[in-house]
């Protein structure tokens, strides 16, 4: 049997891998706006509930890998991840005590911020955005949050203790 600490690292690595796979899972072209930001959700969860396990450097590398995977300019996701992670670190003590739906609202704002920086970078790359579509992922992410929270909680309790 592995030590609890090592187990936790496995759970974290597995959750991020799964999030990466989900973030490139093929969707019909028109549905792609509705894909939740899985990697960001998982990162937010770990920062809220295990603030010492995920480092900014790791998030930066993770973001770079996601950029590579999705074929977007290098640094796009890193930027969003690090900014959101910083806000999370500042606020996790309060947010932990929120009810789950209030947390969802908070997630909507966080993912919205990441989407905003994403679209700045996309705009610099020559793909300017029109309309409010860029907030769709924030909406679906917020709706997915209770599920994500419950599942990751169960995983942590099962393998960490």
């Amino acid at each position, binding site marked *: 049997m592995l030590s609890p600490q090592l187990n936790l690292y496995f759970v974290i690595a597995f959750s991020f891998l799964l999030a*990466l*796979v989900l*973030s*490139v*899972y*093929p*969707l*019909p*072209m028109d549905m*792609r*706006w509705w*894909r939740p930001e899985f990697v960001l959700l998982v990162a937010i969860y770990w920062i809220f509930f295990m603030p010492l396990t995920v480092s900014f450097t790791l998030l930066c590398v993770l973001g770079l*890998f996601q950029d*590579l*995977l*999705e*074929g*977007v*300019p*290098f*640094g*796009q996701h*890193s*930027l969003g991840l690090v900014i959101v992670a910083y806000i999370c670190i500042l606020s996790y003590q309060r947010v932990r005590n929120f009810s789950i739906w209030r947390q969802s609202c908070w997630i909507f704002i966080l993912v919205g911020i990441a989407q905003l920086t994403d*679209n700045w*970078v*996309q705009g*610099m*790359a*020559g*793909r300017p*955005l029109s309309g409010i*579509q860029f907030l769709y992922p924030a909406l679906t992410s917020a709706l997915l949050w209770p599920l994500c929270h419950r599942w990751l909680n169960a995983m942590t309790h099962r393998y960490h203790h």
Partner: protein
Amino acid sequence: MGLVVVGLYTDRLEPLREKFAQLATPFYQITDVPSRVNDWRKDTFVSEVDLKLENEALRTELLIHQRKLQQLASLAAENVRLRQLLNASQMLQDTVLIAELIGVSPNPLSHKVVINRGTKDGAFKGQPVLDAFGLMGQLIDVGETSSTVLLISDSTHAIPVQVNRNGVRAIAEGTGDLNSLSLRHVSANTDIRAGDLLVSSGLGERFPVGYPVAEVLQVVRDPGKAFLTVIAKPMARLDRSRHLLLVFADRDKASVPGALSLPAAASGTTSSSASSSSSVGGGQ
């Protein structure tokens, strides 16, 4: 932030991207598993009656294509004779390699797909990609066993085309909408109308000449503007085709493992033998 700027405005990071592109392949292969299972299910659990029906339909279709091909042979011979009369160069025979789509770019602002061919199969950056109905795009990132195709409808893509009816040249730009391209700087007195077939013109030497690109849907003449607004619909099924063709023009054919040799486009009258009957007929 600095990284973003460096990545966008210089090409310093390109080698890095090429080096690590290989790491992304397994993810696309994993996400492709469900559709593979579905294909396998379709192939395995199929009734004999259905197979017979399909066989029948395919035979009929083959017969129709063979009839077309008979005409094509004499047309091709005639074309060669006429070209000899004009002292023009021989038409090129293009070679194609069949590739399968394994992923779609998750970024909703860009139109890219991932295919299962890479440098190992002879694919190269800038290589044109077709499906059975027309031009789809070109390779932009080439890994060892997979590569990324930029579709013609992407908002950063443009392709030189000509109207098949009269040879008027234009540039077709992607609009970020899968079903429309727009023609750039078409002067107001140009002879172009709805229903015209646009084929690749071969200018710029990136795309081979004569493959169908799009069909003009709408031409708007606004007296207040210097240019026409021309909207065209891509012929290729950009969001549905799973099997694509990579085109090797004759000059870079060298040695491609597994490539098929097909008689291909000559200026406008015929197109790749893989294209649909409608696009062949459109040229005559």
